[in-house]
């Protein structure tokens, strides 16, 4: 079940590895590790093992890359059941011929940005995609989940129907939990039809205030975009709006948008930065009330880059060796707009100088949830908010 390993997780050495290929395999491993008091860190494709804080210990690396496969694509019901180790690219390739998509995992014509990772890693890391403006995050599309608990028990919640209020929604709790609550082995997603036609309108913006104003104008318009993305470099940037729909309807909407944005707004190809990760050795994630985004952008140093959803007030900020003071300052600006800034990825020196997550409301309740699910702290201990 376990083999010796000299691997490491975010610099923390691993003793054993396991590569289960079924939910019951995962349950076996977790029962065993529970009996032996071994800490377990899950790995999908391993692309985001440095998100959050390094685990305190990582005795067993649970490699889920063998737990793959589409279990069921119910095209007529727009529902997909898939195993957790399945690459997101497989999901895209499976759905495309049926004219459907998982609104998280889309590859638009011209897009270079990430589509890596596995289904389970995407749920646990909860990365925001550009379509979130219209379709939300993982939590909004995940309708059912199978999870193996720290003690090896297997549990399901939700199901394979879009509408369902029977029991608690464990899927939402697992989204963004960075492997600290349970191991996801299977997921059921709600799908959407792939739109017939797509167009992008882009405009340069000269200030944070202008970016906010345009995002508000779009919110109040009838354009109904799928994405309202911002690329910010230093003291200015570009706003790019994705419009999707039927071929016959799209022109009227993009024309309206060009008029609404004014200035140099024009219909363009998908910009090359669309869904590209920001550069920098430190990546911050920020979310504020939408009208607070301008203030946050204006507080950033000229060397910073930011990318994300201007429409919702969520961005990734890329920096190189930022001071703790800078992070704390940005955090304060965000807090003034009912949001916060947290460290997604950073060199050890930065992570030691500043709390990665900052003050988290309801932290004590989160601790209580963790203690119920994993009382011995064996699932990625120390990785999450408040050292959970």
């Amino acid at each position: 079940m376990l083999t010796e390993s000299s691997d490491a997780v975010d610099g923390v050495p691993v003793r054993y590895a396991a590569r289960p290929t079924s939910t019951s395999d995962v349950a076996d491993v977790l029962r065993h590790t529970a009996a032996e008091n071994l800490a377990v860190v899950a790995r999908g494709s391993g692309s985001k093992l440095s998100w959050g804080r390094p685990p305190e210990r990582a005795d067993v690396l649970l490699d889920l890359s063998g737990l793959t496969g589409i279990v069921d694509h119910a095209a007529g019901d727009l529902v997909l059941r898939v195993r957790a180790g399945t690459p997101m690219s497989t999901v895209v390739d499976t759905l495309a011929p049926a004219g459907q998509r998982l609104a998280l995992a889309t590859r638009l014509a011209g897009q270079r940005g990430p589509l890596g990772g596995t289904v389970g890693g995407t749920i646990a890391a909860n990365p925001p995609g550009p379509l979130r403006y219209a379709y939300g995050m993982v939590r909004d599309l995940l309708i059912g989940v199978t999870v193996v608990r720290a003690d090896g028990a297997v549990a399901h919640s939700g199901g394979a129907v879009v509408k369902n209020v029977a029991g608690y929604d464990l899927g939402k709790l697992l989204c963004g939990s960075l492997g600290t609550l349970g191991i996801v082995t299977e997921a059921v997603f709600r799908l959407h039809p792939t739109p017939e036609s797509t167009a992008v309108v882009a405009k340069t913006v000269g200030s944070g205030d202008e970016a906010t104003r345009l995002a508000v104008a779009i919110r109040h318009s009838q354009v109904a975009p799928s994405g309202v993305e911002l690329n910010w470099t230093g003291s200015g940037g570009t706003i790019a709006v994705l419009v999707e729909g039927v071929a016959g309807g799209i022109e009227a909407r993009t024309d309206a948008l060009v008029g609404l944005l004014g200035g140099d707004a024009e219909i363009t190809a998908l910009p090359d930065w669309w869904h590209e990760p920001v550069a920098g050795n430190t990546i911050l994630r920020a979310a504020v009330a939408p009208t607070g985004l301008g203030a946050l952008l204006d507080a950033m140093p000229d060397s910073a880059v930011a990318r994300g959803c201007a429409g919702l007030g969520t961005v990734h900020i890329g920096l190189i060796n930022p001071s703790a003071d800078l992070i704390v300052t940005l955090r304060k600006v965000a807090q003034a707009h009912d949001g916060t800034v947290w460290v997604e990825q950073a060199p050890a020196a930065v992570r030691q100088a500043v709390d990665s997550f900052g003050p988290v409301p309801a932290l004590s309740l989160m601790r209580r949830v963790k203690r119920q699910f994993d009382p011995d702290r064996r699932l990625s201990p120390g990785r999450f908010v408040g050292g959970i």
Partner: protein
Amino acid sequence: MTPRLSAVGQTLRDRLGAQRIVDDPTELETYACDGLANIRVRPGLVVLAENAADVAAAVGACADAGVPFVARGSGTGLSGGALPHAEGVLIVTARMRKIVAVDPDDGCAVVQPGVINLDVTRAAAPYGLHYAPDPSSQQICSIGGNVAENSGGAHCLKYGFTAHHVTGCSVVTPDGEQVRLGGRAAEYPGYDLLGAFIGSEGTLGITTEVTVRLTRDAESVRTLLAGFESTDDAGAAVSAIIGDGVVPAAIEMMDALAIEAAEAAVGCGYPAGAGAVLVVEIDGPLAEVEHTFAAVQEHCRACGAFEIRVAADDNERTLIWRGRKSAFAAVGRISPNYIVQDGVIPRTALPEVLRAMTELSAASGVRVANVFHAGDGNLHPLVLFDGRVEGAEERAEEVSGAILDLCIAHGGSITGEHGVGVDKAKHMPRMFTDDDLDTMQLVRCAFDPAGICNPGKVFPTPRLCGEVPRVHHAEETTPAEIF
């Protein structure tokens, strides 16, 4: 009244004033049930909360004394979620009706939990915005109840449920503490406790303030009514529309019996002789809607619609919806009693399940009227009976239960929007294993270790929260925040 409960009553009279406390037996009786009127329990005591501090005081007093409590909004729930506890406190949030803020630029509103669903939309209307989740009870149900039930409505096919439109809740936890889950921003670090709280049917605490997302009113809305010979044909049209990549704002179906009832009640003038009707609504940008709406009509015709009526204006649109919206109550015209069932199936199983239901009805002699959200497979069979006939209610209950079996057998759910409450707790093991239910209850134990918050709901057997090792984890610390 138990000594503990009377002590809680005394404490709360002192702290909140006697006028917020109801203890007169006749008055208490008016709170004995919610929309599921056949199950009644007179509450031990009722607290009429005016603000979050009142709620915290009431919950705190209950927690100190180990007395159970139940939240209640408008009391329109259909699963007995707000059914009181005989030796407990019913905390009513219906008076907390302030709309704290409407902020069109952030696209949100902040409201107290007693605010009526439709009033949020009314407050947002001047800005061309609305609150998307629209349960049929939207003129009377409260936002707090909506949060607890994760309520949806006819338009959630396209727009989603309460969980997709609430970004923050202030909550009094079962130990009396006030916490804030979420806020105006789209996400926050940490576990998504808000996501767990929404839809937890009042078992994880009481919400005292809710931040909701507001949705832009669509530029154009087109509505049609299509008459079909049979539910099979109507079901085929639903599949054809969805299969074509259309996401309508709503697709609702009514069968012949439901049409008959609606006709008797409101004279909606639906196509004569129809075995089924569909109400299909398309909304969005004008150019988009025109194109899609034409395609929808094509599909209806191709699947055998013998009459299609397109609403020419708002009046005609209201008329089309009137039949659908009145259907539940209208069934009272054709049957003295009925059970409202709520189950979900994958929508591709619609024709098969409807046929099986017809057979079930024929075999048992119990009439079943169907009116439902066809687009997302959420069935609302109305099982008719005459309570004066001996054994009729039991037979109706049996048929109603057999319908849930059909839903489960087709991979569906025992509830799509009305919740589990007390009504369906016994059915939960048909859908979930012991480990599933046990795991869900870990969340409950985290929020409510003493088991005093709406006990007896959702889960057939409560988990003993027991002693999780509460050792202090010295290593569970964070580097100091630098300010």
